[in-house]
């Protein structure tokens, strides 16, 4: 990963996406300050081609940026906006729609393909897709849900801001890949909190970190987090703008269970304090659990992963994996 890009981005997020900013955004979706700064940074045009005024970066870099967003629990659809802007630019609608954009793939019946909708932030829009029909629509906040977070809802009182056709665009794989990266980032945060906790908290005369049971729990957490980070990067195609749907499916399919286990292990080592509203841990674990249901659980994506294996296939699983991952291999 390119530190020259990720470093400054991480610093920016550390500054903007403070604990207070995250907590303030929860009841209201108020992210005005944060969003203005992100607009000015230029990062939101990361995927827009250079000749259209963007940075022309590859999706692999976006994986790293999205992981950072997850680490900092950024309360705005940063990676989604990067993707949306690139798509809009390709369709000749670039630069017309500043503001946060969520990705909103829908079924043929116009139903959002997610059990839980993305979390609302002010002035946000949705790039909806039904088949080859795309549209940019305004969003409003729904009622706070069971996770005490604000779901976004399409504002049917407002006319669509734009409508257009795009036959070779599929938003669903992007959602899977982005979520895998957000989740890996949040898992990084959970691991960091957990290590800090066990090093500082003492019982029976010594820090928790000196107990073998705790050491092993954290070792398992590190395994889960390490594999999640690999999955997050795997989900994004290396060289071209077109995402590889099979890679994205693997990424979200893989990360879901490790995310849940990481939450469980973290709460185990934190004890009661980790369940309090005041402690930072719950900011991560509530979101991780909600993300498990966002845009497809493991039960959804696993079927797409397996599909090539159930066709009249030749070769070993290694052959099939190589074929699926190298479909978009560039040179």
């Amino acid at each position, binding site marked *: 990963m390119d530190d020259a890009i990720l470093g400054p981005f991480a610093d920016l997020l550390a500054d903007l996406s403070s604990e207070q900013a995250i907590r303030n955004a929860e009841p209201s979706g108020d992210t005005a300050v944060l969003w203005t700064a992100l607009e000015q940074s230029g990062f939101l045009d990361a995927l827009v081609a250079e000749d259209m005024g963007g940075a022309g970066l590859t999706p692999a870099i976006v994986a790293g940026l999205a992981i950072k967003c997850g680490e*900092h629990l950024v309360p705005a659809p940063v990676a989604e906006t990067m993707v949306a802007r690139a798509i809009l630019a390709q369709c000749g609608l670039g630069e017309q729609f500043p503001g946060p954009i969520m990705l909103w793939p829908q079924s043929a019946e116009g139903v959002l393909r997610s059990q839980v909708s993305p979390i609302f932030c002010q002035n946000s829009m949705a790039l909806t897709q039904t088949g080859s029909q795309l549209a940019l629509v305004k969003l409003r906040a729904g009622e706070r849900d069971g996770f005490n977070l604000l779901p976004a809802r399409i504002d049917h009182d407002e006319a669509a801001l734009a409508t257009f056709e795009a036959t070779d665009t599929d938003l669903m794989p992007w959602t899977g890949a982005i979520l895998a990266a957000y989740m890996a980032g949040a898992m990084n945060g959970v691991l960091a909190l957990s290590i800090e906790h066990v090093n500082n908290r003492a019982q029976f005369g010594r820090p928790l970190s000196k107990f073998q049971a705790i050491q092993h729990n954290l070792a398992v957490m*590190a395994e889960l987090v390490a594999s999640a980070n*690999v999955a997050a990067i795997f989900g994004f195609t290396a060289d071209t703008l077109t995402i590889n749907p099979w890679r994205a*499916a693997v990424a979200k399919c893989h990360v879901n269970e490790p995310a849940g286990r990481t939450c469980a292990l973290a709460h185990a080592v934190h004890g009661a304090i980790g369940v309090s509203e005041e402690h930072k841990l719950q900011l991560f674990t509530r979101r991780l659990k909600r993300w498990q249901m966002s845009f497809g659980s*493991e039960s959804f994506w696993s079927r797409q992963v397996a599909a090539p294996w159930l066709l009249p296939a030749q070769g070993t699983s290694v052959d099939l994996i190589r074929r699926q991952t190298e479909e978009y291999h560039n040179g």
Partner: protein
Amino acid sequence: MIAMAALPLVHAFSPARLPESAEALRQDVKAFLADRLRDYPAHRRAKSWSGFDLDFSRDLAARGWIGLTLPKEYGGAGADAFSRFVLVEELLAAGAPVAAHWIGDRQSGPLLMRFGTEDQRRFYLPGICAGETVFCIGMSEPNSGSDLASIRTRAVPEGDGWLLNGSKIWTTFGHRSDYMIALVRTSGTSDDRQAGLSQFIIDMKSPGISVKPIIDMCGDAHFSEIFFDDVRLPADALVGTEGEGWLQVNAELAFERSGPERIYSSLVLLDLWAAHLRSSPQGARHEQRLGKMIARLAILREMSISLTAKLARHESPVTEAALLKDIGTELEQAIPAEIADALAADPLPTDPELMRTLAYLMQINATFSLRGGTREILRGMIARGLGLR
């Protein structure tokens, strides 16, 4: 929002790609295996790298595919770690019977390259590369499994050489090996722990050595127990530096733990089951279960390639290899359990080869997280890598 403590371990698996030069090997290896293993039943191929077949090893060597990363002057191909990854991946996917040359190729040869003398390299490496010489590992003892530093087998100086007494156990194919590279104590006592240990190459035909195969729960004689009764070792049996055995053994374990055999032990079974699903009317029912395992496998493969890139840069990813081995063996163990659950959901007629292969792996999977370092030991290493110990 939080100070993201530097956790190099969880970010150590940076993305890497197999270069074209390594990929070039793949089709030739596939063609060779398709031909050579034509008559090998699935339940034998399922034994994967526990299958011992000297003829196979020699044929593989004749193609130049043993000691791939060893220098040409010793009979190797002078290729990089990526090439070896491609070769090993195809061998394991096919369930090739690689046991006879596996240890020599995977770790004994590289150990001698790193720590051996020029004379030792010239003497031993050509035989490894020819698939002629079989090596085994002498580490565990009856009272020393995970606590390897507590070993009691001892070599004391005698004349120009050494006199060896003690025993080793759980030695893979010790009863069919020409040489053992053993960790023994040469100075101090067990209380000195890692200090005072050395490695020796032991000619298994030496007087004073007796070997007893151990039958495993599946009826295979794969492990053995070896007794050393006043065995004379020449001076040049010492590998590397006297007293540095612990450091050397840890380097050797990094080789042992870094390969894709830690993720592919159940691959033949997985592919047999996938073939079964393709031809079964119930196949689609198990799509989710299959997909979950494949997703894990794909990510593990990425991690394995990442480690291979480190090996290719002559790094020694000891803790990363431990981490990957723990996750890898978890999946390897889960695969037979998942498939058993799927097949027993409907007692439909099932290929006897699949059932026999499944039964074997359901039983033997217990060993996956024991061999080459137990789960508990690996997790301790990871904890140390996180700064907790």
